[in-house]
């Protein structure tokens, strides 16, 4: 009985529901099938790019923000005076501004930003922004350094808080000691170097917006007032005002878990606006509708998605989640990319890091003249013999060609292959002749015999032990140098090689990579100068030092190449070491995206974003 009653209740409810369904329910349209609405889904299109490290700070000049992961996003967002093209030439972007070397002695450069260039909040980009870059990275505004007692507590915390401390310094801008002058219209700034600086051209630009820094630090709402206050503070070196400015500059642009509520913390002065930021997942940039410069993009949205695992990136490419990837290259990655078949472009190219072998001059080992009673000639012969036996071509053929079929021996200590100086330098430095890629056993044997050194000569060889490629390189080198019983290359592979490099008493030769981040000629200074920071082997040649002194202050690019060629000729003659290959990189994209053409240094695949195009848009709308 009861059961029947409840069944009746259920039946009533069911019937009621059916009656209700006779009216058009509001939820029927819009969610069902593909006919009606779209549940609020976004209809835009974008290029998705796979990258390995997430964006995390808008200020890429600060000590924490200085990373490629930030630089690539900022490259899309902000315009600059110049950029690298495919052949690593510096090209100016005159739709943003111009710069001119006014005088060589003292080196004086005037930077002018065009009138119509604005930040995305409408505030003009002008000399105040450039003044802030100088004030922050020249180091001349800093008034305090943290001091510590024996227990490591900061003793002058109050002074540090009250003082001015910008946390990163650029060596080049430090040479501009006087506060740069701003022109009357406020669009130009003039930098006067106390001594000439070879790489002045890649040394300066606009960083973070000055009005944002000043308005947050000094609590001024109006953009122009904020800028004026900043200019006044820098000109008067007003520590009370600069102190909060430096604090905000150091930390104010760091992103947390989400896009900041305050839109002024991620303004654009260029082609793209930062639209969405999901921590550890992706950033989305959308074309800036107000951008009027030369680098106007054709792709509406660029999304950079983050994943560290190279194979995961390859599968994401295959699954259409990303359109372009540039993973760390290994034979497996390349093989699976090639297995994707048609519909994908694979570009193998050089990266910025290069592999090289150095020998030690000052450790009492086989390459040190002191071992032979100060006999320079004997030590030189031993060094030359050793370097003649480094099987450079063999290493490339066996380990690199599978990753980059066009890989060639790098024959220059200072210049990246493909950069303007490389051909000049490698043609005259004699490395290819002195240390042939195919090795020269006869010459090496003759050198050792002439020198009369007892064989086999022990060489302690340092390299990164867990790096499989370096293990294999070591094997090839040890085998080649051991021919005719000339050298006994001792395996000194160690995972702490980075620290061990500093102490040359522990090894006689080393194998590792140097990374180039720009074509700046002064970068190589520390590697070869007497007492240079990266000159671990104690190499010393007064002529090289003199040439570097000259190079430091040489602003003429042709003459720079000539000096580098002379430097390298000395390095080859002194048998400093050999360079082997440029690290192989790989970029892959599906054919819906066109115009991807990476270069070997930052911003790698992003350098020509305005030349990209995608066919996905048409497909989706058809």
């Amino acid at each position, binding site marked *: 009985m*009861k059961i029947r009653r*409840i069944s009746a209740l*259920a039946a009533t*409810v*069911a019937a009621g*529901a059916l009656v209700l*369904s006779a009216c058009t*329910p*509001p*939820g029927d349209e819009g969610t*069902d*099938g*593909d*006919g009606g609405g779209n*549940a*609020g*889904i*976004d209809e*835009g299109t*974008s290029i*998705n790019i796979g990258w390995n490290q997430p964006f995390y*700070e808008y200020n890429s000049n600060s*000590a*924490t923000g200085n990373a490629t992961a930030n630089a690539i996003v900022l490259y899309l967002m902000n315009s600059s005076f110049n950029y690298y093209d495919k052949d690593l030439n510096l090209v100016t972007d005159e739709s943003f501004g111009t710069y001119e070397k006014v005088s060589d002695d003292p080196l004086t450069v005037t930077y002018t930003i065009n009138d119509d260039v604005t930040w995305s909040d409408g505030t003009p980009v002008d000399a105040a922004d450039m003044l802030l870059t100088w004030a922050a990275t020249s180091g001349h505004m800093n008034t305090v350094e943290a001091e510590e007692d024996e227990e*490591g507590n900061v003793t002058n915390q109050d002074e540090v808080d009250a003082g001015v401390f910008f*946390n990163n*310094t*650029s060596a*080049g801008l430090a040479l501009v000691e006087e506060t740069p002058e701003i022109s009357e219209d406020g669009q130009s700034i003039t930098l006067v170097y106390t001594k000439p600086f070879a790489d002045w051209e890649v040394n300066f630009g606009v960083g973070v917006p000055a009005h944002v820094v000043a308005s947050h630090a000094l609590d001024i709402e109006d953009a122009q007032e904020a800028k004026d206050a900043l200019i006044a503070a820098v000109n008067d070196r007003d520590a009370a005002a600069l102190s909060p400015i430096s604090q905000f500059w150091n930390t104010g642009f760091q992103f947390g878990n989400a896009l900041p509520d305050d839109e002024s913390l991620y303004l654009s002065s260029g082609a793209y606006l930062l639209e969405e930021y*999901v*921590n*550890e*997942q*992706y950033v*989305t940039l959308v074309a800036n509708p107000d951008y009027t410069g030369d680098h106007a993009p054709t792709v509406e949205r660029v999304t950079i*998605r*983050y*994943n*560290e*695992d190279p194979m*995961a*990136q390859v*599968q*994401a490419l295959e*699954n*259409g*989640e990303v359109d372009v990837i540039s993973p760390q290259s290994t034979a497996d990655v390349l093989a699976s990319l090639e297995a994707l078949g048609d519909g994908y472009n694979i570009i193998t190219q050089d990266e910025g*890091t290069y592999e090289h072998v150095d020998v030690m001059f000052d450790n009492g080992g086989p390459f040190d003249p002191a071992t032979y009673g100060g006999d320079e000639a004997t030590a030189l012969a031993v060094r030359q013999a050793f370097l003649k036996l480094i099987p450079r071509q063999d290493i490339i053929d066996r380990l690199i060609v599978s990753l980059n079929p066009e890989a060639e021996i790098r024959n220059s200590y200072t210049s990246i292959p493909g950069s303007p100086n490389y051909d000049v330098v490698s043609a005259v430095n004699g490395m290819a002749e002195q240390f042939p890629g195919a090795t020269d056993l006869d010459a090496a044997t003759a050198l050792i015999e002439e020198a009369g050194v007892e064989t086999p000569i022990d060489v302690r060889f340092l390299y990164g032990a867990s790096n499989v490629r370096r293990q294999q390189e070591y094997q090839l080198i040890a085998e080649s140098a051991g021919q005719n019983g000339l050298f006994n290359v001792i395996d000194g592979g160690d995972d702490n090689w*980075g*620290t061990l490099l500093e102490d040359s008493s522990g090894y006689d030769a080393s194998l590792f990579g*140097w*990374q180039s981040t720009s074509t700046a000629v*002064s970068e*190589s*200074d*520390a*590697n070869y100068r007497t007492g240079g*920071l*990266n000159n671990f082997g104690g190499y010393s040649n007064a002529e090289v030092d003199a040439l570097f002194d000259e190079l430091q202050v040489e602003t003429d690019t042709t003459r720079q190449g000539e000096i580098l060629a002379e430097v390298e000729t000395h390095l080859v003659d002194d048998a400093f070491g050999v360079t082997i290959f440029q690290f192989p990189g790989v970029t892959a994209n599906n054919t819906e995206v066109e115009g991807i053409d990476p270069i070997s240094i930052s911003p790698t695949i992003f350098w020509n974003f305005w030349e990209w195009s995608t066919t*996905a848009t048409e497909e989706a709308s058809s």
Partner: protein
Amino acid sequence: MLTFIIRRVLIGLGILLVSSFLLYLLVDLTIDPLEDLAQSTATNKEFLIAQRIEQLELDKPVIQRYFEWIGGIFTGDLGTAWRTNRPVGDLLQGAIISTVQLVSAATVLSILLGVAVGIVSALRQYSGFDYLITFVSFLLFSLPSFWVAVLLKQWGAIGFNDFLANPWIAWGIVIGLGIIAGFLWQLAIGGALKRRLINGAIGAAATIGALAFLQLSGWWETPNIGPVILAVTSVVIAFAVTALSTGLKNRRALYTALTCAALGVALWYPVRFYLFYYLTDYMNWGVVALLGLLAAGVGIGIGVLYRGPDWKQSARTGGIVAFLVAGLIFIDQVMSVWGPYYNSNAINGRPIPTIGDRTPNLGGNWWVGVLDSYTHLLLPTLALMLISFAGYTRYSRGSMLEVMNQDYIRTARAKGLTERTVVVRHGFRNSLIPLATIVPLDVITLIGGAIITERIFGRPGMGQLFLQSLDGAEIEPVMAYLLIVSFLAIVANIIADLIYAVLDPRIRVNA
């Protein structure tokens, strides 16, 4: 009891301190924060190195740095990840949520499936089904998770998306799948040859029928539960839950279950097109939980209305059935946005992703978000499940076998209880006791073991945080991860001991 807990907590804290000290030393040995600068060619390299040494206090002995760090922990400061200058607390917040999302679904599903299959396998000991399950579980158990993950991506995502572009299964394959399914069913149910043949035929026919229905109704293009599937599934749920909960002989419970199912079908329309429509803008997981509780309450109410001496059993059955049927309606609503989701530019006809925890530039309402996080959870959850499922199968099979050989089972049979009562009430419940100690520990292992899965699927969880920080030589986030994992391990141990004591009256924790 209290003294036991206090003692265990104190010992746990001691272990935590010692292990954090040892781990700090080990991590400090492993990482080299200056490594990237050693290779740098920057002109101000010396300044950068000095600056970093000062920033990270590398000039101090490691033991002093440990005590400064642990002092910070006691005052609630977890430190900062120095590369990005982000507080570790912030980093953990996002990471923990993501990991819990991933691990909870995988744990619940693998326990349910693993225990069910393990019990059936134990009841059919030394049968073909038992051997098959043993083989499969050992196979799964020995699979490396990174490999499973890559295979899942290749077939579960890339392959399945390719299939969806033209979703048609050849009839030969449909029939083949049906025969395999029928074969498995008869293995699982067992019995004499005739019974096996009948069960096998039913299983095969049901599978072929279901696949044919999906295929012919265009289900792959617009997946939905709809009134038909909802009605069939609800009735099946009603019978299954009743059978397990009270046995089909309890007519009141069965009617309660069926009423709940019928009510669910009747409410499908108004809930889907009125309630959810108006709620769309206000939806969140709290509302979902409330609605779920409401449904369970209605089910319990129906059970109570049927009255009778054993109304509690009816209420329990009704609650479970109503909750599950409501769940189906919820899933149907989520599926209803499939069309626009599938056709959107951001998805572009490839809905099963291989990386990340959401689709960029998708937009959409709350339901789209749920669907999107579901498609992103699918493969990593499967990867974790496959492996821990195998373990649970083995555990539950072993403990069920042990229980079924006990004297009290023989007594229960001897006094004439039905086989269902013997198995479910006397056997199954007792076989869960050892599992209660394994599950908490397993959850911890899963959080740790999710490192590989998270990395390969690009989910921003704890494991990913740990790996990235280790890569970047950031000791504080690494230590925070290790501290949390060791803390959870200790807590899980204590909980396991307590649960054991509560479940098994033979155990006393009085110290």
